[in-house]
């Protein structure tokens, strides 16, 4: 598996990155952790003329707390997110999700920005991003843009990013308010380890013990990550017992453009969405009570 020939650039500033992108035109490709791009190069599924490595752009790295948000630089590797005390305390869903991505090697190289920009239909982080209502910040030829996660993931490997835009950071809202719990459940493909279905759930438990509000992100089953909005609505105000959660999750797969493959048909994926949503909601509710 030998990639086609390409030129390699490693700029050190964002301005240089943009200039290099401009120069490469349609034939440039950004390299973050390389965990998705390098395999695509080797299989010649991607044949860029120039690869622009973001690895030396220090300004794209790091995690900071901004009020009620956790802002993560695009080039921050997964492992740094897992190790962040702020993330662990204020946004545990990211830890629950990212700890299930690939293996230690992948988590040490792969980045938050790469995962978001790549928009793999079976990627884990997009499920958490839509559930948390993340905001993606990008910069490009026409200046800075922000995108709501809900509109960011559009299709298989397709995002709302404009041509030659670079994701600079992703902002996730904290979920550390009392009574809020989160969970991420994943049915792993036995070969790739990617999500056949992944469900990220955030549950706010009211004083009466009922569900005050819930947000559910789905990945793996369709062309891109989405929210289970009808289930979220059905859960609101309902008791958080197995039976009523099951009832609310009965239509969790509604609106997902289900995909099927040799491992799991679209029917089975729909079924997994229902089962895993139910389990994730119950687990999140349990975490909320702790």
């Amino acid at each position, binding site marked *: *598996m*030998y990639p*086609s*020939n390409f030129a390699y650039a490693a700029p050190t500033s964002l301005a240089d990155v943009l200039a290099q992108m401009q120069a490469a035109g349609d034939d440039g490709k950004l390299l973050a952790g390389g965990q998705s791009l390098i395999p695509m190069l080797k*299989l010649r599924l991607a044949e860029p003329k120039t690869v622009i490595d973001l690895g030396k752009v220090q300004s794209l790295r790091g995690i900071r707390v901004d009020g009620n948000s956790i802002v993560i630089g695009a080039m921050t590797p997964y492992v740094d997110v897992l190790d962040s005390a702020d993330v662990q305390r204020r946004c545990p869903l990211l830890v629950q999700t990212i700890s299930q991505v690939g293996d230690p090697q992948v988590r040490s190289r792969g980045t938050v920005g790469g995962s978001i920009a790549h928009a793999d239909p079976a990627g884990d982080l997009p499920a958490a991003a839509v559930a948390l209502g993340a905001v993606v910040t990008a910069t490009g030829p026409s200046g800075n843009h922000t995108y709501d996660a809900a509109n960011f993931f559009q299709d298989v490997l397709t995002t709302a990013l404009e041509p030659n835009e670079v994701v600079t950071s992703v902002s996730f809202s904290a979920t550390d308010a009392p009574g809020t719990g989160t969970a991420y459940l994943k*049915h792993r*493909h*036995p*070969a*790739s380890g*990617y999500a056949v279905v992944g469900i990220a759930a955030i549950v706010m438990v009211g004083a009466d013990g009922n569900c005050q509000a819930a947000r559910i992100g789905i990945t793996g089953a369709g062309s891109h990550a989405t929210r289970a909005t009808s289930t979220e609505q059905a859960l609101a105000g309902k008791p958080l017992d*197995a039976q009523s959660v*099951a009832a609310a*999750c*009965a239509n969790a797969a509604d609106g997902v453009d289900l995909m099927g*493959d*040799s*491992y*799991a*048909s679209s029917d*089975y994926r729909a*079924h*997994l969405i*229902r*089962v895993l*949503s*139910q389990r994730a909601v119950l687990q999140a509710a349990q975490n909320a009570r702790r």
Partner: protein
Amino acid sequence: MAVSRLFGATVKRREDPRLITGKGTYTDDFKLPGMLHMAILRSPYAHARITHLDTSKAKQVPGVHAVLTGQDLEGKVNGIPTAWLIPASDLKTPTYKALATDHVRFTGDGVAAVVAETPAIAHDALDLIDINYEPLPVVTETEKALAPGAPQLHDDAPNNQAFHWTFSNGDPDGAFNGAEVVVRHRFVQQRLIPNAMEPRGAVAQWQSGADELTLYNTTQNPHIVRFLASVTNNIPENKIRVFARDVGGGFGSKIPFYPGDALTIFASQVTGRPVKWIEDRRENFLATIHGRDQITDVELAAKRDGTMTGLRVKAYSNMGAYLSTAAPGVPTWLFALIVPGCYTIQNYSCDVLGAFTNTTPTDAYRGAGRPEAAFLIERMADLLAGELQMDPVDVRRKNFVPADAFPYTSAGTLTYDSGNYQGTLDKALEMADYNGFRQQQQQMRQQGRYQGVGLSTYVEVCGLAPSPAAGAMGFQGGLWEPGTVRMLATGKAVVLTGTNPHGQGEETTFAQLVGDMLGIPAEDVDVVHGDTAAIPMGWGTYGSRSTAVGGTAIYKATQKVIEKAKKVAAHLLEASPDDMVFDSGTFHVQGSPDKKKTIQEVALMANLAWNMPEGVEPGLEESSFHDPTNFTYPFGAHICTVEVDPDTGEVKILRYVAVDDVGVVINPMIVDGQVHGGVAQGIGQALYEHAIYDEAGQLITGSMMDYAVPNATHIPTIETARTETPCPHNLTGVKGVGETGTIASSQAVVNAVVDVLSPLGIKHIDMPLTPERVWQAIQAAKSSGSGSGSGNANQPGQPGQ
């Protein structure tokens, strides 16, 4: 002989430090001066005519030395031979060209090759080869290929029939007439991909002055490669040296001689430079042999008390587009003879049809025919138990060949050498706490937890084995082994073996064997394999034969060394050889323990030859050529317990108990390791692995992203134990363990899952038991409401529906 210490000891594998620190020498590690690199262009179509092929642009690329097509090979490189010509079967062996000329028959069939300065240039130049195809209708499934009107692959194989092979013993039809019970089922053995960690590859160095070839090759059998390369590339066999130092796994896929090997040799001849070809993982998926892919229709006749009385099997085997080296023997001889398993059924017939399809050729994959056989009979034993409402343990007990009946001639006309099937089963039942589990199973069900237990009691045939039997079966080779033991002047020993260990650890085992016999440290024994220039002959490592056959040859050679050393020692001690005692590496005169010579001292004197006894030649080296009188027959009982998640269909293995009897054990840790690896592959087949083609003949599970080779997280702790029933017909008592784990395990897992689901009326699910398949089976059973346990209110529920 000395009280055994090395023999039977747990000794760490000496090959491991180099392998796990990246210091092994695999084919890709050979870098010769002036070496070029070859890449192969492979057909993207499963079935097509080549209508246009122009390599001129690729030839112009700087750094490209040659671009080869099928035309270039005409008259120079012969077809890839099929080396197992099963008799009386109307076998068709259509030509398998190293590069197709006008007609491609599977996705991955080679059509051209580029030889260039670097692998990257070679791969880039492949893109510049101008080739057009006219797609033809495709058939990938065996029964469809054999049906009238199917697309035809070969002019000389009408109806795509590769062979029709039959076997019969006793009166099978009579057994079914008026049988008290008949159980019938169809089983699908899915197609598997061997996936050795080291992909296929070769480095060929043609020395034109001497007209000699050195071939560095990743193979299980260097001498067979030498033989087949000679036939294919028209090079005298004595002008070929095949070298295979470290081989990164094979599982059968490195028995065959491949088009890539023949092409690499030819490319070196054409360019006058050494040429390396290393396939990438995608090529490995497409162009290295696949395994299994067999459908069987099985009927079992029995009495109401559970006694099995007759067995009839009709099998359909997918051979792929061409017949690979050993392919025809796998679904016939290696499968059919052992189907009756541990049981005393004497009325048995088997009818096997092999078909050509537009898929990658199939051949031996770990177990080769025997896993299919063991799966079939062990699933049938459970189906019979279900039919008769008997415990699966009792059905097996009822039919076992009794321990006092050995040697036993089976319905497959094999002579089972020794065994105690009841013994391994009893031990496994105790280890797995079978009775306790059965009680607990009911309670768990009440709590909504769905657990089950599955048995597999197996016997296999290995230690491949008598050369006359090979001849009778049409195998175009012998199955004996040579062994040479040489003591050097410094007291160290060198062992030459014609087997080619590639993960089985014989560098360690053979050193233990010889060190133990000679009374010298194992570290002083070096085991040399994988070099046809150093080793007189050899038939290789497969069929769990290396230690049983090759090890016995070494044992005999070592005995001869001791005999000769005794003469030399007696001469030096001025005593009669008859008065010599050999103990722990030292000869002494009977009754005078102080009059002694160590074997190292004797080795020195024999090598110096200053003072040899009359009529004794210098040196201390002996060889033996061992041809066994029978195969060997390891056996055992594996028990698996599982839990099924009724909501998702996921199967979790709770415990896996493997009690094997592989005869005498030289190194228990290595034997455990072989069982672990084999069981992992069997679990892989049961739950995960599946090579799937679409209608157009594209392999849609053609990468590690899609094809699930189990990893450590998929495999439970494997609890191993053994009983030891020596092989009575060789000197070491060793039987063989390379394949037992794979042969024994898949059906234990499937039987356990079916045990969980049988209250719903589910009788079988075809492998792999993926969560969706299990879930679909549960759905189907619930909607048809056919649960035999209608009184059982504890059917798996479906929350979330």
